[in-house]
């Protein structure tokens, strides 16, 4: 699994699994999000419970939720700003926000595509494929290619 160094708070240094993220804007989200280059807390625990939207779980009424803006990281899909939801000291949700370009909204950045690419890479690795030869892939097509997943698996 590719380790994506986020530079988030040290307690989040094990965050790797963008693949398992889902939208989690939180019930209290409002207004545009700012891009921060360093992580900072967006919403600290309040007295009210707030289960991230999209969760099927029912949070206990007293769950304290913290939302952290994880700053911007370079991924193979380009710069990604990440927002992380913490509850009880554990990561309960990750949202990848697009770099604001005037149209600020949460998006599940290619989450389905990411999951599929990951599945393909795992399948390829189980088949022992190291690289792929195909008709010329353009730069734009690369991001969806199996070769890109095989590359990402070995970035230093």
């Amino acid at each position, binding site marked *: 699994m590719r380790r994506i160094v986020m530079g988030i708070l040290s307690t989040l240094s094990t965050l790797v699994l963008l693949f398992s993220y889902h939208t989690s804007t939180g019930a209290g989200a409002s207004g545009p999000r700012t891009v921060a280059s360093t992580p900072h807390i967006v919403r600290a625990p309040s007295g009210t419970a707030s289960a991230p939207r999209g969760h099927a779980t029912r949070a206990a009424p007293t769950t304290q939720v913290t939302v952290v803006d994880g700053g911007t990281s370079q991924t193979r899909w380009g710069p990604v700003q990440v927002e992380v939801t913490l509850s009880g000291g554990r990561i309960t949700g990750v949202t990848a926000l697009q770099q604001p370009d005037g149209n600020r909204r949460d998006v599940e950045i290619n989450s389905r595509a990411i999951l599929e690419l990951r599945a393909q890479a795992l399948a390829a690795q189980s088949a022992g494929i*190291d690289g792929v030869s195909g*008709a010329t892939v353009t730069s734009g097509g690369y991001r969806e290619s199996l070769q890109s997943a095989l590359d990402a698996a070995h970035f230093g």
Partner: protein
Amino acid sequence: MSGTDNQLARVEFVMGMPVSIHLRGPAPEARRQAAMEAVFAHLRAVDRTFSTYRQDSEISRLARGELSVDACSPQVREVLDGCNQARIATGGYFDPMLPSAGGGRTLDPSGLVKGWAVERAARLLAELDREDYYLNAGGDIALRCARPDSPPWRIGIEDPRRTDRMIAILPLRTGGVATSGTAHRGAHISDPRTGSPATGLRSVTVTGPSLLWADVYATAAFARGRDAPDWLATLTGYASLVVREDGTLWSSTTMGRLLTEKRPTPSAA
């Protein structure tokens, strides 16, 4: 996924395509990085000389007649020489003089430049002692296993009918692999004789000692179309795999020996 090995990869976009390098072996980190950087720098230099999209490139100036062949750099003359050899070896199905809009022909050796440049770039990686490498530039691959006990690189050949699938996996220790086809860019290969897009085949994959020639043969075969297998069968030292338009496969006897049974993959989607 890097697990217990020390395989390192890096990708950059050069010459309009993704260029991925994979290294595996005992070379120190600093030497690995330097070698990869040298590869990308070399390809950027090639782009400056040969890009037909750059007005000021040597090749553009040559095509406009502002430069004579004799006045060109050794690299350009080497490529033009290669193009001549390729034209002869392929019976004209590889030709750097491509039909252009307006009925004339303009010089565009890009088809040979890619394989030529990547093969030269691979030499920079070969300087890493006992280091296995493969270099994948937009689907053209140059590779080497440097130690007898290194496992071969297993190169998947993309299925043009469904590009998230492989039609074959080639275990290779040296040489190059090139695939010509329409899967990603539409009909961009023309029959040099007619100027019309090539038909009859979905893709051609060729592997052999030289990526430059694998690329030339794959391109020429694709331009030939339906009767390409007859010609590919005559090549010495190069193995070929063809996907015809109707989806059927043809492989040369040399490729048949090389092909390994594809391990079943779980369905990805």
